[in-house]
């Protein structure tokens, strides 16, 4: 079978999977520390263009560390956003490194706006935080930096499986989406930077299809906080364009200002109560919901996008806005599931539970536990998406270098390789069957509705899980017509896995906390649920267990325990 599709074997000290901002930062940081190591990025599309950093608002979270102490932000975040479920030490490290990271990005080629006195031109977004605009060529600049210092890059190769040897990482397999060539890449250390799970729903989040999460799961890595993969945002109902901060201006069909029903104090960003409010309006007959602003055409998010001179991203935003405005006849809104499940469990050096396997950026945001009870960026913390990826990419470097230096080049296991080949080409070899989209459609029908995945209740979770399990059966019969389609089949399998984990963990967590919202358990339960839910593939069985959050060792503690 290998001969039929072509076969390439490669060896590298460090293999980075994914060429978005997280993977590029990791590759550059490792190469800077140890230029003698071979660093290879493998990207299923084109490194520098892929990922999400170049498709969003292009904002970086900024902390004025002369004014705000990291521990002050941590206290605010733990209480207002993370709801005591986060690793406070790691979050404090992220805040402390803010200025260092911004300076590094400039060194790596990004242009960040500064004032005449040399300080950053930052726009306040709350009492503690501000945002700095960065042009959307940030990932391209990083790619050029990576290539200049000797990082190798292979585009259009999708990684399928992680290889291990005696429980330690040994490399990965993959295939060209252009001609199907099978790749076996032996590596001493592997950095997973494949993004979150977004189920192919929101357009700009569509690169996050969970294939890296699934590969880590299959290899036996622990996943944590899978139930926090249900971010949703208000969008205009015709163009589906996201309305950042739209939740502040929600009105029902009767003209009543319904934001006041769920927002009693200023909050940093949308929370799941806004989604519940929309759902209640729709089910009680007072929907649809629309936005109203004091100024005609106003929206609070838009000025942030437009305020900086960012020539590269300007065309991108102009086209997005123009085409959307052509169909948006009013400001009716509804929520859209974004997802952002990011559960690969990592320690502070971004190492997973498999030695030598690291996970950075949106693949491990919740898995790191830094944010607590909230989905991956934007998860109520605007501007933290790019910077979290940069933080994680930098944070893995010392450990990855040390791991390489103390390891011999592993010999990939032939049995694992054969298994991967069978798995990869199975949809292509099948004579007939359903399409990848048949499976994806079913998964989307389970995760998409707000009452299934955001405003949850036991009976609805169970019904959604049954739909996902039907999709799981259907996925065994997928037929691919070419390599593009084969990739879609593997992504569909990853979506099934993510959705199954999400619903199984969600039914376990019998409380509401942070973004996580249950109709049948509306209160936060610190007595029973200061716990992380961890999931692991144990000889093919999906095993869940809980682990007490070690909150006693951190400064901010709940009062009612």
């Amino acid at each position, binding site marked *: 079978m290998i001969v039929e599709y072509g076969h390439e074997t490669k060896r590298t000290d460090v293999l980075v999977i994914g060429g978005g901002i997280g993977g590029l930062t990791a590759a550059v940081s490792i190469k800077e520390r140890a230029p003698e190591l071979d660093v290879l990025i493998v990207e299923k*599309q084109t490194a520098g263009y892929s990922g999400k950093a170049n*498709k969003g608002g292009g904002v970086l979270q900024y902390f004025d560390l002369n004014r705000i102490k990291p521990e002050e932000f941590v206290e605010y975040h733990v209480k207002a956003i993370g709801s005591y479920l986060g690793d406070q030490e790691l979050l404090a490290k992220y805040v402390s490194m803010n200025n260092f990271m911004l300076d590094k990005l400039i060194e790596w080629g990004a242009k960040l706006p500064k004032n005449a006195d040399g300080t950053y031109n930052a726009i306040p977004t709350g009492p503690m935080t501000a945002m700095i605009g960065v042009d959307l060529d940030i990932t391209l600049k990083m790619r050029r930096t990576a290539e200049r210092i000797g990082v190798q890059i292979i585009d259009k190769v999708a990684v399928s499986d992680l290889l291990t040897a005696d429980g330690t990482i040994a490399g990965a397999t993959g295939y060209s989406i252009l001609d199907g060539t099978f790749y076996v890449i032996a590596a001493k250390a592997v950095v997973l930077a494949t993004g979150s799970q977004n189920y192919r729903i929101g357009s700009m989040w569509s690169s996050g299809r969970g294939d890296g999460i699934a590969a880590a799961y299959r290899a036996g890595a622990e996943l944590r906080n899978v139930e926090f993969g249900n971010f949703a945002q208000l969008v205009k109902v015709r163009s589906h364009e996201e309305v950042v901060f739209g939740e502040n201006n929600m009105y029902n069909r009767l003209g009543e200002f319904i934001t006041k029903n769920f927002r009693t104090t200023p909050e940093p960003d949308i929370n799941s109560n806004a989604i519940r409010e929309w759902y209640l309006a729709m089910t009680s007959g007072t*929907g649809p919901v629309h936005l109203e602003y004091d100024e005609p055409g106003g929206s609070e998010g838009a000025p942030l996008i437009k305020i900086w001179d960012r020539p590269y991203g300007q*065309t991108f935003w102009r*086209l*997005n806005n123009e*085409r959307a405005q052509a169909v948006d006849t009013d400001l009716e809104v509804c929520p859209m599931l974004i997802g952002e499940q990011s559960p690969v469990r990592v320690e502070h050096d971004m190492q997973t539970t498999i030695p030598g396997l690291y996970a950075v950026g949106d693949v491990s945001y919740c898995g790191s536990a830094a944010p607590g009870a909230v989905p991956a960026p934007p998860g109520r913390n605007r501007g933290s998406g790019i910077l979290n990826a940069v933080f994680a990419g930098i944070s893995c470097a010392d450990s990855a270098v040390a791991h390489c230096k103390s390891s011999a080049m592993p010999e990939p296991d032939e049995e694992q390789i054969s298994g991967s080949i069978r798995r990869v080409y199975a949809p292509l070899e099948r004579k007939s069957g359903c399409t990848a989209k048949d499976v994806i459609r079913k998964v989307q029908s389970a995760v998409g*509705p*707000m009452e299934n995945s955001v405003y949850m209740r036991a009976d609805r979770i169970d019904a959604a899980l049954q739909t996902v399990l039907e999709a799981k059966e259907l996925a065994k019969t997928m037929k691919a017509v070419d390599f593009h389609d084969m990739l879609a089949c593997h992504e569909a399998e990853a979506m099934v896995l993510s959705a199954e984990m999400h619903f199984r963990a969600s039914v376990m967590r019998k409380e509401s906390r942070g973004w996580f919202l249950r109709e049948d358990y509306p209160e936060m339960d610190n007595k029973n649920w200061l716990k992380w839910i961890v999931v692991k593939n144990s000889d093919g069985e999906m095993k869940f267990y809980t682990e007490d959050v070690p909150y006693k060792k951190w400064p901010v503690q709940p009062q009612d325990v």
Partner: protein
Amino acid sequence: MIDTKHEIIFRPEQCVGCGLCYKACFVDVIRWDAENRRPIFKYVEDCEHCFYCESVCKKGCIEVRPDYASERLLQSFDNYR
């Protein structure tokens, strides 16, 4: 999203074969005809209308025409299916 009906209009007369549109596509809609140095819009049904291909084309050869109405919002209310 899936099951969409977006269109991509390509006007090859001005194309200089730079390949940026191919590189910019993050969902493999665009393939590259190396011999003729031209993009092939092979999987338009998977287009996410990010407009990157159109944005990076310095010659204005590409126009993405989103069909927003074909996108499903997956909510349980008739208007939003």
